[in-house]
């Protein structure tokens, strides 16, 4: 039996209000490819961030034993010095630097005050050859494809003398051919250099192709480890491990009163704002009815947020094409103002970045999207504004000393309520809620679900985008499944199951033509 390279023992990591990892154990042998699978938010990335020192020693409980010694990493530099290199899902390359410059960034060759460019380029050539990339070392990163950028990342990791390579969803933005090439490279490096890798991925066909072992993580705990040749590696077996959880009474009951189609989206296409040839939303057709909670399920990066934002006054994307009907009439929403005028609201998934002004009080945030309603001829009636804010605070049971409180000082759940209040005050008929319960505790979640039910009871339509399957299943009347920019399935809320949704996603993964 090969030697154990890495052992993570009883790792527990808590964020304010949330236990992200709960006694996780992971064993990785030298020279193996170990796959980590689990739903979004299961804790895979958190675990890898603990391992690589992004969360320093002391901010978690448990031990990391690497090469038979207990490690206490304070930052990424410490873990890299030991040969643990992490490649994040979002590539960390600088577009306007060359491949060679990127490869040795922070690790420059030569002396402190005199970079040895010859050594830099010859060394980078050598590593590029190892990963099988034929580009010149002087090519700018922005000029090569994402697949090649991924290879540069691996070459960069190798240049740091990586012993243990961690790849966080390395193939999520690659097509079939590039993905296969990347996986083959991992197998080759394993064979030739005895390189150990941990790979996080949602594509289960890749897992069974490349992995020697699979560890399943669910809700912050390790569920099981499957070994190649011993256990069943089939997709259905893995899915069972990933979702095997019971729906309990976490969702308030509601009698649906579903009416006519309120909004319909036809042949909707959206391209990436920077990389104009990359299609983010691919020929999507959806509709939502009056009084309906419509779920859009899918993995992160499936294009759900981009779809919602492109509908909401073209706030995302380029070359948007397709038709949009509200109450049967075609509308053209070119700006957010148009969208709000047509009674559409988009409640962002990123409440701190895109939703709230953290340095401003609750009352100012509440009225921001509909200032006209509290003002006469552009003069704000501050008393009315205050009254509105207090009204919503009571309606949504926001916990705060007063509405003069800065939003930045509230907890995540209460911030989410302020954000909801802001959009409810804009008086929309259709609300798109993007991950409305992300990062908030169970109690606050329940309250948000109640608000959603109340909204549809009033005859509004709610589109709920969520990565949490139980939430989608517990709340929605109808569910669309989105993957890689396309709608890959539609289910009635009553007969939907986690297995069905996951199957839709996994069967459609990586099948898309290069485009």
């Amino acid at each position: 039996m090969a030697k154990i390279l890495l052992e993570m023992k009883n790792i527990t990591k808590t964020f304010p209000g949330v236990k992200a990892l709960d006694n996780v154990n992971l064993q990785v042998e030298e020279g193996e490819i170990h796959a980590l699978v689990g739903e979004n938010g299961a804790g895979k990335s958190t675990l890898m961030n603990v391992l690589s020192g992004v969360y320093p020693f002391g901010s978690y409980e448990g031990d990391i034993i690497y090469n038979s010694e207990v490690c206490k990493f304070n930052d990424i530099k410490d873990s890299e010095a030991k040969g643990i290199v992490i490649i994040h899902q979002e590539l960390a390359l600088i577009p306007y630097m060359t491949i060679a410059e990127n490869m040795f960034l922070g690790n420059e060759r030569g002396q402190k005050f005199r970079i040895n460019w010859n050594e830099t380029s010859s060394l980078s050539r050598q590593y590029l050859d190892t990963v099988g990339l034929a580009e010149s070392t002087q090519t700018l990163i922005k000029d090569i494809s994402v697949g090649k950028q991924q290879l540069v990342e691996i070459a960069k990791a190798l240049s740091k003398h990586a012993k243990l390579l961690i790849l966080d969803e390395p193939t999520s933005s690659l097509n079939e051919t590039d993905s296969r090439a990347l996986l083959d490279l991992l197998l080759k490096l394993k064979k030739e250099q005895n390189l150990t890798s941990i790979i996080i991925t949602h594509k289960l066909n890749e897992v069974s192709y490349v992995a020697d072992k699979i560890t399943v993580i669910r809700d912050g705990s390790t569920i099981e480890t499957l070994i190649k040749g011993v256990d069943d590696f089939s997709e259905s077996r893995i899915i069972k491990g990933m979702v095997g959880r019971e729906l309990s009474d976490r969702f308030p009951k509601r009698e649906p009163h579903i009416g006519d189609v309120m909004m319909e989206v036809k042949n909707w296409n959206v391209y990436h704002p920077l990389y104009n040839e990359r299609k983010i939303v691919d020929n999507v057709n959806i509709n939502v009815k009056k009084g309906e909670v419509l779920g859009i399920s899918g993995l992160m990066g499936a294009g759900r947020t981009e779809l919602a934002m492109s509908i909401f006054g073209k706030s995302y994307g380029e070359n948007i094409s397709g038709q949009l009907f509200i109450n049967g009439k075609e509308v053209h929403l070119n700006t957010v103002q148009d969208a709000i005028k047509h009674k559409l609201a988009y409640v962002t998934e990123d409440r701190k970045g895109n939703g709230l002004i953290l340095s401003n009080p609750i009352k100012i945030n509440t009225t921001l999207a509909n200032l006209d309603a509290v003002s006469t001829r552009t003069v704000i009636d501050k008393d009315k504004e205050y009254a509105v804010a207090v009204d919503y605070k009571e309606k949504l049971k926001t916990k705060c000393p007063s509405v003069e409180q800065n939003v930045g000082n509230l907890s995540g759940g209460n911030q989410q309520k302020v954000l909801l209040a802001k959009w409810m005050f804009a008086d929309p008929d259709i609300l798109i809620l993007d991950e409305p319960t992300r990062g908030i505790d169970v109690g606050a979640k329940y309250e948000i679900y109640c608000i959603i039910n109340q909204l549809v009871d009033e005859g509004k339509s709610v589109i709920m985008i969520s990565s949490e399957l139980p939430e989608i299943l517990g709340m929605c009347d109808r569910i669309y499944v989105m993957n890689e920019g396309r709608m890959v399935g539609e289910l009635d809320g009553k007969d939907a199951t986690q297995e069905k949704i996951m199957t839709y996603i996994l069967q459609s993964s990586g099948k898309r033509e290069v485009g």
Partner: protein
Amino acid sequence: MNNAKVLDFLKKNTMILVLVIVLGFFAWRTGGAILLPMNVSNLISQNAYVFILATGMLLCILTGGNIDLSVGSVVCFVGAIGAIMMVNLHAPVWITIICMILIGTAIGAFQGFWIAFVRIPPFITTLAGMLAFRGLSNVVLNGLTVSIKDQTTFVNLFGGGADCYIHDIFGGANLNLTCLFGGILAAGIFVALQLYTRINRKKHGYETEALWAFAVKMVAIVAVVLIFAYKLAQHKGIPTVLIWVLVVVLVYGYITQNTTVGRHFYAVGGNEKATKLSGINTNRVYFLAYTNMGFLAALAAMVTIARLTSAQPTYGQNYEMDAIGSCFIGGASAYGGIGTVPGVIVGAVLMGVINLGMSLMGVDANMQKVVKGAVLLAAVIFDVVSKRGGKMIVKN
């Protein structure tokens, strides 16, 4: 009343306290000279342009710490045009005033266009403007000084020349009664308005500040206004330019605090993405900030050439720095979204007091710059560190 509340009160009014301390220091060092009626009056007329420009600069800074470097050159250029129009082209005063305002606003709109719609960084755009309009001022004036001494209507209107005070309609002998009554009236209106708001809020059950804090604030403000009016009355009365400054401060104070447009400035500076997704046209906000800056630069130009009764290619130098400095000392955030017109005025007065005090003490002009630089840096360090919860060094 507990310690936390006192601390909070002190924190909110730091710069006012600093102003009082600095004023006390100079009163002591100059043997009370800084508090002489003549000097109080001078403080206003010398710094009128700072008050006007700083108010405009606040709007730019609110949008995200953006500054306008071109204001000094624009003041000079617009002033030059005005002087040439009146002296060389013999244009009537009112046409000159309209032209100056139009040109200033157009310059602001031109810069605002690049900043707002093409998203050229404001620093670069206005640096270019600073160079270009300085050069154009020279071209317009042919490198010479144009005297507008004889344009008495214009000079009097904008508070320059010898006759730069509001006449006393009551004919007080040693004391300008108009000024004194004006002060009392202003204090009265202010207190009445504050009381009305407070009673109204109480009636609706809204939050109000503690009674003691309110009382202290009222007494302090009324005292300052009355002492100030008395000092001015002892000299020659209300400087004409003070009327202009008051109009600007009151109008912009109202716009920033009570209108939707004003709210938009704060929102953009607080979180531009969220503001955009709330259906607010953020481009328009940037455009308005810089267009308005051009407008106020034109007003400052009129005040400047009136006070100096001439136009010269060197006028307006470092005006932008005075305005920017006043904003930051007055509590505007270098990241945008935070700052008030009254705060900025306190900042400008503080700078003015430091200038005047050091001049009266006979401090070398070069050392004065050093002191002003130190005050500016200290103010911004204080702002940034206090917002970080008192942590001085940022972890790498």
